[in-house]
């Protein structure tokens, strides 16, 4: 089965990349800063505390040995100790992960649900008004400073119109729902509290829109251009010459071929969403990993920053692997 070989090949390729990722993070966290021990202990720690930390973390050992220790820690799930919270970074990340996941997932769904049809319409009605509008929208999308967009949205919908709340996942007065998945939208429904669900939803709208705006624009663009590229292909002319209905030609024959580049970009976008979440969560006070790392930056909580970086890039690599696998299902030329 060639598809299995393909997946295995991708996995094998993955391993040096993952090692490289750990190496890069190691270099950044241990080799670049002037005094890694000081960075890990925090600016305010006493000299004694720094020396203790240096010895206990083995930061006085030669670099290669440090790297092995680092890798070992990773296998055990040890990402270091947050200076700010005085607890393992991995625990912090576990706490904040669901909020980010919820935001990222919703944004992804939004991007596809809006971006795909918009891109298709744009391609089919090329150079007509709707196309021009969506192209302008695309340019704005990729040029938009996410944090500024968030502020403008707050200005409009929170301050001026008062329709939507400005921060957090839930009104301060409400207790969080029962922790089933960590995703408020699901948990509130599980709990059966309709009012809480609406509240969570309202808190959700602005951050989700803000986060997805950029990638919506990107996805629309890629769908449009790949559809246009496919529509010029001979096999589309053949389908038309055989009398197939226009809708079938677009939605079946053209779209399936366009999905390949679309899926690739979508996969890349998920990774970028993780990056964009940093800014969006900060603006909307959304208690996710993004806000966590920005707070850590302000505190110069070095281990937290590095832990976050590692987790996010691992996720990014895994997602790209998934995209590659999906690729194989979409493009028969890879499988056979």
């Amino acid at each position: 089965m060639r598809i299995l070989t393909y997946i295995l090949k991708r996995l094998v390729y993955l391993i040096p990349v993952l090692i490289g990722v750990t190496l890069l993070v190691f270099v950044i966290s241990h080799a670049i800063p002037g005094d890694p021990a000081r960075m890990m202990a925090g600016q305010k720690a006493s000299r004694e505390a720094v020396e203790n930390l240096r010895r206990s973390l083995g930061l006085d050992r030669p670099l290669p040995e440090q790297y092995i220790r680092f890798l070992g820690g990773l296998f055990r799930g040890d990402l270091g100790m947050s200076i700010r919270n005085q607890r393992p970074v991995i625990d912090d990340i576990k706490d904040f992960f669901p909020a980010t996941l919820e935001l990222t997932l919703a944004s992804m769904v939004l991007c596809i649900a809006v971006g795909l049809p918009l891109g298709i319409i744009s391609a089919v009605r090329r150079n007509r008004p709707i196309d021009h509008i969506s192209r302008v929208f695309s340019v704005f999308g990729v040029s938009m400073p996410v944090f500024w967009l968030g502020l403008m949205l707050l200005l409009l919908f929170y301050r001026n119109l008062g329709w939507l709340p400005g921060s957090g996942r839930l009104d301060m007065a409400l207790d969080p729902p029962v922790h089933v998945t960590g995703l408020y939208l699901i948990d509130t429904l599980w709990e059966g509290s309709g009012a809480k669900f609406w509240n969570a939803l309202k808190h959700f709208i602005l951050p989700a829109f803000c986060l997805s705006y950029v990638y919506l624009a990107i996805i629309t663009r890629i769908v449009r251009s790949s559809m246009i590229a496919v529509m010029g292909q001979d096999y589309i002319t053949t389908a038309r010459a055989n009398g197939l209905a226009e809708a079938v030609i677009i939605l079946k024959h053209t779209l399936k071929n366009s999905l390949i580049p679309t899926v690739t970009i979508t996969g890349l976008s998920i990774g970028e969403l993780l990056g964009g979440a940093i800014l969006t969560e900060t603006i909307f006070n959304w208690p996710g990993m993004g806000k966590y790392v920005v707070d850590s930056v302000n505190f110069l909580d070095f281990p937290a920053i590095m832990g976050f970086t590692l987790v996010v890039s691992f996720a990014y690599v895994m997602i790209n692997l998934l995209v590659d696998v999906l690729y194989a299902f979409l493009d028969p030329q890879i499988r056979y």
Partner: protein
Amino acid sequence: MAGTLLDIRDLSVRFFTYQGVVKALEKVGLAVSKGEILGLVGETGCGKSVLARSILRLIADPPGRITGGEIFFKGEDILKTSHRRIRQIRGNEISMIFQEPMSSLNPVFRVGHQMQEVVMLHQRVDGAGARKVCIDMLQQVKMPDPEEVLSKYPHELSGGMRQRVMIAMELSCRPDLLIADEPTTALDVTVQAQVLTILDDLTRKRGVSVLFISHDLGVIAQICDRVAVMYAGRIVEIAPVGELFSEPRHPYTRGLLRAIPRVNEGRETLSVIAGTVPGLIDPPGGCRFHPRCEEVMAPCGRDVPETVKVTPDHEVACHLYDGDN
């Protein structure tokens, strides 16, 4: 006329581009009779493909547009019929096969799926029935192991096999007319011969008329009953194949035939037609061939030549045959 299947009259097609208006087809007229194979020959860029696509209204608008003329098919002007009617005709009463078999099939669907889709669209059969039709057609085009082929993806087949699949697919609904746009040009010579034979046999057996487009006179000579010669968007000569080769009337046709190198002639240099094919945004006035014509006369640059019948089935558009003969 009895026996006429397709009658193209005064067809004009233009393309509206940034650089200007391309006058791709200018009052083109030709007719295909029932059961005959009509060849359409001309150099690259003369408008053969545009003509072929115009018949099924496949010209992309923008930038192209059919600006005049009629195309009568079984008595109906198919340029003016509804979109539903033309969809009914496509793949069903008039079929088309294209030049590039490598890209004419959708790479993400299996061959059987694509063939069955067409059959189920036009005929009242279900999936199983369509499958039977497809297998039968694949056998007709001498495909080894038709059942296997149905489950393959296009990239798993060779160029020649793909073209045969195309032929099978396009003939599966028993069309009255098949338009073949350079079907063998992209194939190896050996495969070419195979495909040509299949095409010839099948169409004659089923009484399918063919509009066979090519720039290769050799292929035309092999398979066609009559031939139309095209130059720069106009038809310049139409004649039965034998007569075209033995008694070409139009200077362009003569030049073309002369340019075919023959092994037994002692000639040192290749004979060429002087000049180059004109761009169609600003084509020459009058007869479009006149700047290159060896027998050019006074009216050639001024007046478009009328089509004249020099014999009952041989027509030419050239001032040489205007008043005299």
